């Protein structure tokens, strides 16, 4: 008891000395003259190559800006959906948090929960090219992407060869012909995870990208007007595919990514010839093979063009990951952090570790996997990348669209009914 005050005094004295020392040392740096701040960083990287990368990013950034402390909070991806809105309602939301752009970001911006970072990112935003558009609201930057991929067909080159298909189909009629050939060869042409609904939507979305003009696509996420004839045609062209019954048995109950009997597992284990999926698919497939390796037969080709479609040739469907700053995040620290994640050094590592497809110009060569390089090549040369519609639209409308498309896949809705359902959802609040 007696020496307790003494210990306390010693501690206080020590703290005072440290504080003075800190002030002296920090006055040396320019950035550090600013107030010391903490950035709470909510991200969804809980496994894989990103874990080490993120640790490095945080410690490097703190070294570069000694006044900033990064507090990283990894969360399961699925938890984000429920945790973000609740956290944004509170007085102390996370400063930096995962953002997929599109309609979700618009909703957050309308509610005043995300910070406009336009002026902070202006010096470098051009270096990530057209990718930035998906994270803008009315031309202002509210978040920035660090990895953007596109959806395409992952396919089994061996099975294609065995079925007598010399090269990957580039047009819709060629694609339908390839499916018939694969069926004749006794192979399930396409694996699809319809249980999750969003894999169904990839087909409808992509056909819309090919059939509708760029203007109609972009306007649809603002006005939610689906009267253009191309929307109905989308469902009708899709029906041509569905009528061929190209999917594996029981596809309506197949999950996209869980287990060897998922659609990714079927492709990985040679039980189906192709799957329309995002750039993440090799990583998913790897974990579903007995040898834990990306199969050597794997190839990639973009979604075929549809003759007579109004979409610009080479238009793609895609999406990605980015970060937003919440409304009360310390600035410019938060925007500086976004900038650091998009810096060439970090972007190159995002590519080289296989963590994502980097967005910064000059980082392309860091991607080593030949298939991902193909994906990157098509992405970089694409005149227009449409964000996945369920992400581009407000969540309620996007989900209603996915649900309606899933009904068409189950044979419970006509192309016209899909358009009606989404128009109906757009009218709701």
């Amino acid at each position, binding site marked *: 008891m007696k020496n307790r005050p003494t210990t306390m005094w010693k501690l206080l004295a020590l703290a005072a000395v440290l504080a003075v020392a800190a002030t002296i040392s920090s006055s040396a740096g320019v950035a550090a003259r600013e107030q010391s701040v903490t950035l709470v960083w909510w991200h969804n990287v809980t496994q894989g190559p990103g874990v080490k990368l993120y640790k490095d990013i945080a410690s490097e950034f703190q070294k570069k800006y000694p006044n900033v402390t990064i507090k990283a909070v990894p969360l399961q991806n699925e938890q984000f959906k429920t945790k973000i809105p609740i956290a*944004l309602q509170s007085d102390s939301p996370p400063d930096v948090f995962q953002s997929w752009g599109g309609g979700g970001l618009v909703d957050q911006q309308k*509610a005043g929960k995300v910070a406009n970072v336009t002026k902070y990112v202006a010096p470098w935003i051009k270096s990530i090219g057209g990718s930035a558009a998906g994270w803008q609201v009315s031309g202002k930057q509210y978040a920035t992407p660090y990895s953007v991929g596109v959806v395409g067909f992952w396919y089994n080159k061996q099975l294609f060869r065995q079925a007598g298909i010399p090269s990957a189909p580039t047009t819709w009629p060629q694609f339908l012909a390839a499916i018939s050939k694969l069926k004749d060869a006794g192979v399930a042409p396409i694996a699809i995870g319809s249980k999750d609904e969003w894999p169904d939507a990839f087909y409808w979305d992509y056909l819309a990208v090919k059939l509708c003009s760029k203007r109609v696509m972009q306007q649809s996420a603002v006005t939610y007007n689906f009267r253009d004839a191309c929307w109905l045609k989308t469902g009708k062209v899709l029906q041509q595919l569905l009528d061929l019954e190209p999917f594996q048995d*029981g596809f309506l109950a197949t999950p996209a990514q869980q287990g060897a009997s998922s659609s990714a597992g079927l492709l990985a284990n040679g039980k189906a010839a192709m799957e329309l999926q995002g750039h993440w698919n090799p990583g998913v497939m790897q974990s579903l093979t007995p040898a834990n390796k990306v199969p050597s037969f794997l190839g990639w080709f973009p979604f075929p063009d549809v003759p007579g479609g109004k979409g610009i040739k080479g238009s793609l469907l895609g999406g990605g990951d980015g970060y937003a700053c919440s409304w009360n995040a310390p600035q410019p620290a938060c925007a500086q952090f976004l900038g650091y994640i998009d810096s060439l050094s970090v972007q190159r590592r995002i590519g080289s570790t296989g963590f994502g497809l980097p967005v910064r110009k000059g980082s392309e060569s860091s991607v080593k996997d030949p298939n991902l390089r193909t994906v990157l090549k098509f992405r970089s040369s694409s005149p227009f990348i449409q964000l996945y519609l369920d992400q581009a639209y407000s969540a309620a409308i996007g989900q209603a669209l996915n649900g309606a498309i899933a009904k068409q896949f189950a044979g419970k809705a006509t192309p016209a009914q899909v358009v009606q359902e989404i128009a109906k959802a757009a009218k709701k609040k």
Partner: protein
Amino acid sequence: VTSLDGTTAGRAKAQPAVVRLRRKWLEIGLFLAPAVALYVIFLIVPVVQAVRYSTYAWNGLGDLSDYVGFGNYREAFGDPAFRQAMGHNGILVALSLVFQLPLALGAALLLNRPLRGRSLLRLLFFTPYVLSEAITAVIFLQILQPDGLADEFLRSIGLGDLVQLWLADPDLVFYTLFVVITWKYIGFAIILFLAGLQGIPRELHDAAAMDGASSWTNLRYVTLPLLGPTIRIWAFLAIIGSIQLFDIVWIMTLGGPAGASSTMATYMVDQGVNSYRIGYATSVAVILFGICFVFSILYQIFVLRRDVAGGTARMAG
């Protein structure tokens, strides 16, 4: 004499009696306060809040500003997808009562007889109930996948023609789920009925036998009436459970394909968590709450009232 004594005694005791009464209420108040506070904070307040949220169009972000009155409720009852989900819950209630009751009763009667390996059998029947819903769902996902255990088993015994797309056929999936649910919960019904059967005094069976009652008559006029309270409690739990069903469905099918296995609860989560229509989903939650609440009260009044003396009804309520 007594009245005279009573008045004087009463007057003498009047003051302490009031004090004692006040003290008694103070004690009750003190002891109840923590429980009441918890009840109010974690039950009453959220229910009131939910009712409030349900009258707004709200995406979970921003302020409650878009008041729509009963609009959400009108939309829910007008939405074919919600009506379909409600229908599924209704079918599930009916199926549970029609199939699970005789099944569980039969098994309980069998297991109540002196039988070799009876304890082992009881254990086997009860085991599924101990598994969590999530584990049950994952196990059956494996069993029921195309060319899975169920299909292979049918083929191996020469019934390959019966193989179905158990979870992918929109016309079949709900009944597949019902079988899984029955497998999961039947053990609980059996244990409940066994306990009830053991509460029936042997003498009644003996007396009935003496009077020349056949075993069927014995069952019909002795066993069943005396098992009544237990059956009524089980039915109550089964109906409420059917109305609130969520976990198994969500893990196995997400309510699909195309809503073919949806329930009110999966519809609610889909609207709230996936579509961010928090206000609307809350109105669905309030509807679900209302259905359970009204049903519970009516069941108490009309069905369980006669059992109240036994005390079981109060426990379940």
